[in-house]
């Protein structure tokens, strides 16, 4: 368990460990190849910040499977959020870095957790401002339910039934120094 476990008194349950994340990503990579009949015209666009790490990992696996380098971009959806300026300070804006055209591409958006669907909505709007993809698909490591918009994922690492009071935390080596997914219970 990560170091913060000690200082966090909320109840935790680990739902994925490093091996489970690796297996899930490998399966999702195969599903992507199967569904798209190869990797032609595919691009991966990760949502800041852990979605970008996941997109890079998927790209590595796609290379192992199909021998092709699938380009990876990073999309920051902050400026497309539907709660900007409503309450509290503005969230930090990070860089969108997509060094390829998305026109006529099969874009796979990659995020760590699918929850209300609002982030995905923002990502779709942000993506459409950058061009006109042929098709957009969504890959997530965890789908925890509780959708507030008509959005679903095409590829899911793990479906996790949760209560709205709970929090799902994805930790990745690149950002957190450890791989794992935990549920935090906010009721004390």
């Amino acid at each position, binding site marked *: 368990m990560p170091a913060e476990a000690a200082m966090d008194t909320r109840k935790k349950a680990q739902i994925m460990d490093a091996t489970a994340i690796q297996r899930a990503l490998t399966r999702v990579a195969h599903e992507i190849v199967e569904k798209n009949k190869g990797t032609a015209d595919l691009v991966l666009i990760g949502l800041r910040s852990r979605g970008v790490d996941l997109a890079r990992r998927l790209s590595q696996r796609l290379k192992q499977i199909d021998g092709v380098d699938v380009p990876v971009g990073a999309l*920051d959806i*902050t*400026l*497309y959020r539907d709660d*900007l*300026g*409503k*309450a*509290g*300070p*503005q969230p*930090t*804006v*990070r*860089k*969108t*870095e997509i060094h390829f055209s998305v026109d006529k591409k099969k874009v796979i958006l990659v995020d760590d957790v699918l929850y209300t669907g609002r982030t995905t909505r923002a990502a779709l*709007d*942000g993506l459409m*401002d*950058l*061009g006109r993809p042929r098709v957009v698909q969504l890959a997530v490591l965890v789908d925890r339910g509780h959708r507030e918009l008509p959005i679903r994922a095409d590829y899911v690492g793990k479906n996790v039934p949760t209560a709205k009071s709970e929090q799902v935390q994805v930790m990745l080596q690149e950002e957190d120094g450890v791989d794992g997914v935990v549920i935090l219970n906010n009721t004390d």
Partner: protein
Amino acid sequence: MTLKRKDLLTIRELEPEEIHQILDTADSMKEIGTREIKKVPALRGKTVINLFYEASTRTRTSFEIAGKWLSADVINIASTVSSMTKGESLLDTGKTLQAMRPDVVIIRHPVPGAPKLLADRLQAAIINAGDGAHEHPTQALLDLFTIRERLGRLEGLRVAIVGDISHSRVARSNIQAMRKTGIEVRVAGPATLLPRYPEQLGVQVTTDLEAAIADADVIMMLRIQRERQGPTLLPSLREYSRLFGLNVERLKKAKEGVLIMHPGPLNRGVEISPEVADGPYSLILDQVTNGLAIRMALLYLLTGGHPAER
């Protein structure tokens, strides 16, 4: 993280962390200007008023474009075509504008402190776009951003600011911004145009241009502000140009690859020769482009949800 303030009035009041936060946000915003469709919805439904009591092309246009790229509605008011010419006081103009519920008012005014007057009385966020010879904070921020973008850091750099230091709000804001971010500043100009109390500003002063630029990483040339000077501060522009103008010959006394900046508008042939202004180390047009990113960042950061105390 947000700016811990309602307004941006001066560099003097900013904490170094706030400066870095604005620069980091601008760094993220800059990408929007490279898109084919230059618009994001972040400030949809927000109203931004450009209230300009002094001539301005680049600053006013820059704020207007920045606001529009963020989807705000931007309204320009120039002093020559408004009730200002009918004798309305600044405060009455401000109150009238407030009644129209703007979210941000950007003001340029010849009187130092005019933005503060509005900030204390209006609910809207006020951004100082230049108040007399006092401050021009967004110019200083875009200059820092441009330097950081090119050189990768601010801390430990040496910058020479040359020209009419005492009348320049650009110099005043830049000196403070640079001191707060660890830049060593040397100012040079005719004795009549140098600051009276340089030690308070934390800068070295010299009347020798070549000494000022000798080991500088960046040379910032300023325009001679004839509109703010009395009649007797300079014998002639030609003499000024001979002693303090930056030309190719002089540049040989500086470090190889020294970067050249100028806030504009340029007086070609006076403070800067065309060959230098258009030369390979000139950042003058980068400054203009980066001004958009800085102003987008500020408009975004200042339109957050209202903190409790507001």
